[in-house]
């Protein structure tokens, strides 16, 4: 009976991944979880004839899985929605450097890894959504001000295990050093209106509900709420405005969504093609228009409806720099009681 079961499973497995002779494939491990990406995958397959085998999951779980799979991992391209996971995968030796003139030309140096291990192709800013009736813009024009007593009991944030928070705190550690960053984290914990729960959109809605006055959020969540189909969400964004605090006067903290080629990629060239496809002007415009992210390439202007929000100064800190500080950030936040 066991043999029958195994036979069935193997047959099923084989028929599940059946490919026509000569069919090109690329195996994608992606932590991007946005519906709008489906159109990109379809367009890539249509243009190149390469079939995309995809597995979606949380970035950390995919990294752990690739690590366990080892040298025979079928992963070709690993894409994340945050720089920290890219750095972690690189540290685990899961990437191979890529020499691609296209990618080097299109993606600015601070949004990619110097040796070509990974490249960002869109940006997102981690900024604040605030109640316009209760908070003046100058009170939130610097990240440091968020930890001030002015906001005691008035800040909503999500959990410390969110990679977006880890990257932000990592950037603060990189800019201010661990002591000042540690003080900031403790200040935020003291200012929390409630223990962290839910995602960024929940924080924005909580501001609208009067639970708090300021929320930390990724830019695209707000943009999607403001420009999407949900009338309730749009109403929320009439009351709650987006503010861009600055880090040391140099601009708002900007994170990337990007990817790298897996070390033992069986379809390496296809993977490079897919990454270059993501970095192309059309793809960046598509993601920006449909998901509210900002393009990474300077020659790609943010399309409507994102353009109204894209007029801000982006902090030039390199993604590799703040991504490397994530473990420190995690320990710091745990120790300070940021759940």
């Amino acid at each position, binding site marked *: *009976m*066991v043999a029958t*079961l*195994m036979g*069935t*499973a*193997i047959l*099923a*497995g*084989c028929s*599940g*991944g059946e490919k026509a002779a000569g069919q090109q494939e690329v*195996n994608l491990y992606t932590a991007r*979880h*946005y*519906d709008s990406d*489906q159109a990109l995958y379809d367009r890539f397959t249509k243009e190149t004839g390469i079939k995309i*085998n*995809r*597995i*979606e*999951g*949380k970035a*950390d*779980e995919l*990294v*752990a*899985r690739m*690590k*366990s*799979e*080892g*040298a*025979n*991992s*079928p992963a070709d391209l690993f894409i994340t929605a945050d720089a920290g996971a890219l750095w*972690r995968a690189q540290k*685990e030796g899961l990437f191979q450097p890529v020499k691609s003139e296209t990618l080097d030309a299109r993606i600015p140096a601070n949004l990619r890894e110097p040796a070509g291990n990974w490249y960002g192709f869109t940006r997102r800013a981690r900024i604040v959504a605030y109640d316009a009736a209760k908070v003046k813009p100058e009170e939130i024009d610097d990240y440091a001000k968020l930890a001030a007593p002015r906001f005691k009991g008035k800040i909503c944030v999500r*959990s410390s*295990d969110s990679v977006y928070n880890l990257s932000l705190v990592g950037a603060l550690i990189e800019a201010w050093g661990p002591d000042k960053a540690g003080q900031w984290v403790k200040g935020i914990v003291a200012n929390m209106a*409630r*223990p962290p*729960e*839910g*995602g*960024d*959109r*929940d924080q924005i*809605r*909580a501001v*609208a*509900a009067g*639970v708090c006055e300021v929320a930390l959020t990724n830019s695209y*969540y707000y943009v999607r709420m403001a420009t999407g*189909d*949900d009338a*309730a969400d749009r109403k929320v964004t009439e009351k709650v405005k987006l503010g861009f605090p600055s880090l040391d006067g140099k601009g708002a903290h900007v994170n990337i969504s990007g990817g790298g080629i897996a070390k033992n990629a069986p379809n390496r060239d296809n993977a490079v093609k897919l990454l270059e496809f993501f970095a192309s002007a059309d793809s960046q415009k598509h993601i920006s228009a449909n998901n509210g992210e900002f393009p990474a390439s300077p020659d790609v202007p943010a399309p409507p409806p994102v353009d109204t929000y894209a007029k801000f100064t982006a902090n030039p800190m390199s993604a590799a720099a703040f991504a490397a500080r994530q473990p420190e950030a995690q*320990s710091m936040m*745990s120790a300070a009681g940021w*759940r």
Partner: protein
Amino acid sequence: MLGVVGAALGRDSADIAVRDILRYGLTSAWLALLVGTITAVVGTLAAWLVVMHRFPGRDLFAWALALPLAVPAFALAYGYADLFDVAGALRMGLRDEMGFDLPFEMRSIGGAAFILSAAFYPYVYLAMRAAFLNQSANVIEAANMLGCSGWRVLWRVALPMARPALAAGVALAAMETLADYGAVQFLSVQTLTTGVVRAWSVYGSTASAARFALPLLAAAALLLWVERASRKGRTHESGKARWRALAVQPLGRLAAPLAFAFCLFLLTAGLLLPVGWLVWNLAATSPDWPRLIGAVRNSLFLGSIGALLTVALATMLALGTRRLPMAARLASLGYATPGAVMAIGLLAPAGVIWTIAPGSGAAIAIILLLFAYAARLMAAALEPIDAGLARVTPSMIHAARTLGRSETGAALAVDLPIARGAMLTAGLIVFIDILKELPATLILRPFNFDTLAVIANNYALDERLGQAGLPSILIIILSLPAVIWLTRRIAQARPGT
């Protein structure tokens, strides 16, 4: 599982303070205690009402009260958290119209306890219903004659006799609570199960993850021991008992509506309200049908093959238990551990297999996943199969042997036919549980292979609760026939009537 235990005791250790494990552990323990207590009270009450009394709707509730089994706990969590969200339509409306706000928060331990109780009370309900149905009418009558009636009969006579069933039901509910991942993770309640996954994925340390899992294994061992111990003093139904119909009491004008309302409340809390809310939210979404249909296929595939495999393994274990009692108990430990533990434990040997046989990735992943399910759900399958095989007396086996069958032949000829019903029950239970399973599937699944649970979870994590509703509802639809069949089977007429 042994691999996991081994990993915990050695190798690299990450920066996981004992303080963290303690904190997560206390949360898990407290949650299990709350859910155990609530389900014990609620399940027993419901079973007592339905078995011993007559009131409008009783026949419907008799089997309908078990329906929440078809609903994954995480779907309940999505529904309730969304409905009672502090910035959601309901509470904002209340605040605007009525000027007051509901004083509780769903994303808390209390909320999680409520949600998990609503999800798992059917375990206690079914166990107690079976126990009450199998009571001796003589004992009840004797109690009545001695002046005990109504609630006192329950408290002083029926309950003590049904204690093993209560222990079994509560143990199941507690173990499911400890093993739950999707619901508590969504509600931001930090239990050992979320700690396991966090330690593994964020800190990248299998050893730390295993350390979070150890208390769960210990708790499972404890709960299983409690359950077995309470069964020791029980007298089995002797075949010579005379079975008469239980005297069913019609409820009076005051009590009947109360009973009806109570049962309706349970059904609403566990099924109608959250599912209704999810359905309501569906209106605004446009489902991705091709993906969903693929997921239905995958879920059904995993569910049925997994059920077959688990039942086969459980039967072999149960048959072998006569000689090796410890084997069955060890195998059952997996029930309180989240599927993630099994999956993580299996990833290491998976790496070995992948090196030996590259290109077989998808098949290997599926086989490993099936084994993870089997390891996790062994207890659920063993219970009914054990009970079914218990009806086989040694004399039957000896008779088969004297008629010339070998040891295995005797087993095949005697045990299996008698236990057939039990095996079917076990298979259905495992099938339903696999449809609802989340963490192991997330970790081990191959490319382009999403189940309904995975899709629902991914949508929920992306804060698209509206779209998480449809895969959740599909799970419920697929599980319903199995659940209904199971409950009607358990409700079969008392022996002898």
